[in-house]
């Protein structure tokens, strides 16, 4: 990704050390970081403009993350990632409902945070451009994942990933049929063209391998998701 203009990211947390750490990671990836230590401060910065993405803590003095998000949404549609020590589902849902784009529980893996930031920026940019890369017969895309069937090249967030032929075929099958859930048996029959007898583990293991390669956090996959007791799928965005 060749960027002419530096991307500005607002990081707001009442814990200065966390803000500083995030700043280090983001600057390493070439982002410009704006720091704020409470909600009002953050809101002021955003109002000034030049912010492409905001990372907000939920529990902050003066203005908490949820209300801040609501206020930001009144003036801007930039991606907002909520950071919270509250990892309960209800918090997550509340955050996403009021307009946040992503939710990362504390304590978080810094690399995951960076990956989420990139992912959210890409999605925002694509939406903003209102143009996805043409979905022709040979290039398939699902979020930050793109497969070029001509070159047999797989990229995640632009980064090439090396897959074995079987893994490639499985991923291709799922990406080609985004949103559809394939059971282990179906995947096996599709890829190996034979009855799946006693080969169930093989598919599950391949899926796992794929995830290890393309997901930032395989425990919480973004691309190849498990539908427990049914099969696997790649979400259609």
């Amino acid at each position, binding site marked *: 990704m060749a960027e002419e203009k530096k991307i500005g990211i607002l990081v707001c947390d009442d*814990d200065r*050390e*966390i803000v500083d*750490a*995030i700043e*280090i*990671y983001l600057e390493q990836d070439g982002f410009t970081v704006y720091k704020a230590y409470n909600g009002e401060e953050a809101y002021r910065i955003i109002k000034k403009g030049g912010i492409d993405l905001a990372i907000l803590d939920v*529990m902050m003095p003066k203005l908490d993350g949820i209300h801040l998000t609501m206020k930001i949404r009144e003036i801007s549609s930039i991606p907002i990632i909520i950071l919270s*020590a*509250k*990892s*309960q*589902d209800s918090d997550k849902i509340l955050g996403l409902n009021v307009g946040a784009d992503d939710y990362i529980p*504390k*304590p*978080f*893996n*810094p690399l995951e945070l960076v990956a989420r930031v990139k992912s959210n920026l890409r999605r925002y940019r694509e939406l903003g451009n209102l143009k996805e890369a043409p979905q022709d017969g040979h290039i398939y895309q699902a979020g930050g994942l793109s497969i070029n069937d001509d070159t047999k090249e797989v990229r995640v967030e632009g980064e090439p990933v090396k897959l074995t032929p079987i893994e490639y075929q499985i991923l291709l099958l799922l990406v080609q049929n985004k949103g559809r859930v394939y*059971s*282990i048996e179906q995947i096996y029959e599709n890829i190996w063209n034979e009855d799946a007898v006693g080969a*169930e*583990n093989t*598919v*599950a*293991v*391949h*899926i*796992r391998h794929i995830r*290890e390669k393309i997901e930032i956090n395989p425990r919480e996959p973004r691309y190849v998701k*498990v*539908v*427990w*007791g*049914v*099969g*696997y799928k790649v979400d259609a965005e």
Partner: protein
Amino acid sequence: MKKGISKRTAAFLAVLQHLAAAGLAFLLVLLFAGQTVILPSARGNVSYDLYESDRSRAYEDSLLFNNILGNNIATVARFVAIRSQIETAGSYDGEKQVDVTAYVNRGTTLPGDYITGIYSVANLLKWAQNGFDYETRVMSPEQSSRFLSDSTIYTRIINNAVSGGMNSYLNAQIEGNTETRVASPYEINQEEGMTGLEEYAFFNEPEIESGSEEHSVLVNRYRTVDGYNIEDIVSNWNDYQALCSNVVEAAQDMNNNYEEYQSLREYYQEDSSCLRYYIVRSIGGRKEVYTNVTSLANEPNAEKIQNYFKDLTRHLYLCPYDLSYETDSLIKEETIRAIFKQYSYAYPDQIRIFIGVDLDAQVTDDFLAGRDSSAHYLPSLSLMHLMIGLFAAGYLFLLVLRILFAGRSYGWKIDRMPTELILLLWLILLGAAGLGFYRLVIYNYDLLGQQSTYLQAGCAAAGSIVIDCVLCLGLLTLIRKGKASRLWADSWIRRIGLAIRASFLFTVQHTNLAVATWLPYLTLVVANLAAVYLLQLPGVIGAFIVDLIVGSLVYHIRMRRREIVEGIERIRDGERGYQIDVTHLHGENRRLALSVNQIGEGIEKAVNTSMQDERLKTDLITNVSHDIKTPLTSIINYVDLLKREDIDNPKAQDYIRILDEKSQRLKHLTEDLVEASKISSGNIELSLTRLNYVEFIHQTIGEFYEKFEEKGLTPVFKPTEEPVFIMADPHYLWRVFENLFGNAAKYAMENTRIYMDLIPEEADHEGIRTVAFSMRNVSKNELNVSPQELTERFIRGDKARTGEGSGLGLSIAQSLTRAQDGEMSITIDGDIFKVTLWFAIDEGQ
């Protein structure tokens, strides 16, 4: 009192006491045996008493001597009476004539005319010895009259010369004092003055007996001295039978007397007895002398005879005719008269009796044996009394001693028995021992006889030991009980009394219950009985109707009670808020139901409170976790940043690595903690969906493939043949499996296999089938914990709590399983760790 005695001493005392009892019994038997002597006399052994007063007298003046004399006089009186029947001139006379009818009636009076036969003594004796034969003959009246004589021969006593009664046997014995007369039947009839009616009967008799009749005929072995057969004397069958029976009776009597005569004659011979007798009687001028003094047999001088007897040790003389009696013995006149009166048929008034005893005779008889016995026993009597006294005193002393010492130890088994039982057993044993003693010692007294007095005394001694043992056993047991104050405590009477008292108290205290239960019941019973008894059928019908009503009432109450029971069961099964409807309940049932409702409310309240507490706890944990997470975020981030710095110092790198690991662990811990408390407080929302269990497990295995591979673990899964569907929340089920698999990955021994099965189970009683998933692995560490502990929070296979996990995994898994209506169990068998999950199979669709 002393502090008890040793067992040895106690046993010694017991033995001493039993010995004293034995000695006492021994002496007592000797004493009693010594008070009687059994002497062989003319008619077998005779028992005589020994008298203490005799000790001061000479033997010939003793009571014993006079008792012996009296018995001998009685025997002699009989002996001489027999002699008079059998002898003539002092010796046996077989030719002596016996008037059988007079003989048979010798004790009474003969009729004026009587039918008799005169037989010789010898013939009668022989006849009796040979036996009497009868023939049964059938005779027509003609044959009868031919067989019997035409007329009856009657005998009549001419002169009643002998004093002592008309027509007596003595008169019949006088020669020539009888005359005979032959009379025809008619004559007899007239003479006897029969009434008309009897006449009629008599004359009609031949007509009645017109047919032949059976008659018992005595075979005439001997004839009378006149040469008659019996049938020659009588003219009718009645007289014939009477005479026959007289002949038989006379012969048998005579024979018995003859046998007695022989033995007595032997016994009372002059050279074998101390007794001397001389009896002379006069019958019709005939003088008969009976004596065992040879020298006096033909002595005519009465003076000389009298002197002979006066010279003997003791003598007596009786002459009823002169009313004279003299003696130097203690025998009284009326005694001797009474003796001789028994044989008045032999002793007329004209009789003189001399009887004497010569103790200097060189013979062996009862007189001399009696003298020996009294000489033998009497002198030792006082010594015996003294010894008996000593033994008795010793026995009593020892008994009292043992009683005093008894009961120092209460604890023998026998002492625990109920008092009445001990008493009963004691009495039974005593009775048995006493009976045995009686049979052995007292009952056999005569059989053992004089010579066995010591044997008898020995038996008594042995027997008394047994009795004494039994006596002491029971007595001492009771005394021990008494001393331990258990006599009353252990008694049945007390227990029964207590039971009665308790039931009485219960009745008093629970008058309502007792009255409510028993009064109606008894009233009903009495009413039923009264109705049936008094009113018969209507009463039965009425009682039946009343009983039916009462029965339905009872049934109704029982039904209501059932509702209460059901309510209790519902509360028990978790329906805590359930309230029993009390609107239609009354009395006891209503009270019961209200109480149950209150209990239910109490439980509900308690459960709510505890749930609230649990929620508070969860909130607390969650909040604390949040507060930990924020600084932890910084720690993790800066450790990561540190890692990125170029630090050459290997030590520093190592420290950073440790920081990294521990901060990651802390992160897991806080996450697990929050989750565990959330789940255990029921603070999660489930969305149950139908999912393919087999597929799910395959996926899980796939997810964990790398983790297993790292440790060299090989999962071996044996699925069901058909897909199995269950209702579960996919996310939380995954959390369950994640924990279980993660647990296996962490704690299974490296390079082993992990076995997994999925097995559908049989339908239970509600028709629900479950499927069991089980997973077994070999533990890396020793499993020294119980399965329960493993599912308790913060407990892990390795108690030291090192390593990666939080220790909450199994607890979380179990809680989540239960939240999804499943069940999880853990079994540990050595190093084999096995976890099993059960879920209901969803058969739908």
